[in-house]
């Protein structure tokens, strides 16, 4: 990727103005720039905006847009709230050197199909906060996009949720063939599936089968797994066929649900 002009704003206002008025492109981790062939007229680097944090804020945890995968992986706060969920979600992503670069904001804003993280964020019921004052459901953003230039400031996680992540890969640090996160929110179940290979989607029918019972039976869980495979669309690519993904998914959903249920 080529960047014709580079800006490093020192405030969110300045960054937002460059993006919204001068058609600037926000630069998150920038790890994919190397392999991308696009040309960016104005790159707006978010590095100096203080967006690297994982912190508690009332009944939410806030994760700044420039927080790296490695910081998610090693965060004591996330471990205390969600167990090993975030470590399990991001620790297969290439190596530590790349996880020290790639960011939460870059992943969410890019709405990448292969993403592990977006699957977990959608399942937990995360919200995306766009500067200056717009908060949207993250799963809806992943599905529909923003429709206008935006500056992602942070992601909000409800602390009441608990989840489990499952994935299948051909080799340890490759992109996933398919991934899923199941979560109990405190009042209902959420199941997200990513790397279909298209972007993450919630499994509404499977979630409806599970209902509001925090302790669904093995049979109900198995039904939810099959429903997830039936309601989603899958594609074929170099890593797996659509049929293979459809066959594998119910097993992963069942295992994730059983881990959360206990």
């Amino acid at each position, binding site marked *: 990727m080529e960047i014709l002009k580079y800006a490093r704003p020192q405030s969110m206002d300045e960054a937002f103005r460059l993006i919204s008025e001068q058609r600037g492109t926000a630069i998150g981790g920038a790890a994919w720039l190397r392999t991308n062939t696009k040309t960016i007229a104005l790159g707006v680097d978010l590095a100096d905006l203080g967006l690297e944090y994982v912190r508690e804020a009332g009944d939410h945890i806030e994760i700044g847009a420039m927080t790296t995968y490695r910081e998610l992986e090693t965060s004591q706060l996330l471990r205390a709230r969600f167990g090993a969920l975030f470590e399990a979600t991001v620790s297969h992503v290439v190596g530590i050197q790349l996880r020290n*670069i790639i960011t939460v904001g870059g992943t969410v804003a890019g709405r990448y199909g292969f993403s592990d993280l977006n699957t977990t964020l959608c399942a937990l019921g995360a919200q995306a906060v766009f500067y200056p004052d717009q908060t949207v459901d993250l799963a809806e953003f992943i599905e529909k996009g923003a429709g206008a230039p935006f500056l992602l400031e942070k992601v909000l996680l409800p602390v009441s949720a608990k989840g489990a992540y499952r994935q299948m890969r051909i080799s340890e640090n490759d992109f996933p063939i398919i991934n899923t996160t199941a979560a109990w929110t405190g009042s209902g179940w959420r199941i997200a599936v990513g790397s279909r290979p298209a972007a993450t989607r919630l499994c509404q029918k499977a979630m409806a089968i599970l209902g509001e019972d925090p302790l669904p039976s093995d049979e109900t869980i198995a039904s939810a797994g099959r429903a997830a495979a039936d309601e989603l669309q899958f594609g074929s690519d170099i890593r797996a066929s659509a049929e293979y993904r459809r066959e594998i998914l119910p097993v992963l959903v069942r295992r994730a649900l059983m881990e959360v249920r206990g």
Partner: protein
Amino acid sequence: MNITLRINGKEQSIECQPGEMLTEVLRRAGHLEVKKGCDTGNCGACTVLLDDKPVLSCSYLAVRAEGREITTIQGLADEAKQFAAFLTAEGADQCGFCAPGFALTVLSMKKEFFHTPSEAEIRHYLAGNLCRCSGYEGQIRAIKKYLEADHA
């Protein structure tokens, strides 16, 4: 554009393009110890430390490194030499192309862990460093012995 990078404790003023990655700029500045491997963010040969954290210089914007401390293998020559003795003793040095990146990741792991890491922890930490010669077994033995000696 002109940027000033602090490399191994010394400031260097360097011309670069806004979208240029750190590997190219470091090598142009004379730091050929930073190896150019896959150049796509997969192999770990180009690893440098940025404020003591290992990053892939092929996937890091050079201009973003301004104001941060960049350490190449030359900046940790004494420590690298100690580690290299363990690699050699285990027959794991082979062609050596991946060695600078490997060594920097190992030295970073040594700083990060307060205990001697298990083999699983070592393998996980080094998953981003690929080697096409050794099959990893000799390297894992060398790393374990090096870290055990350090924590002894």
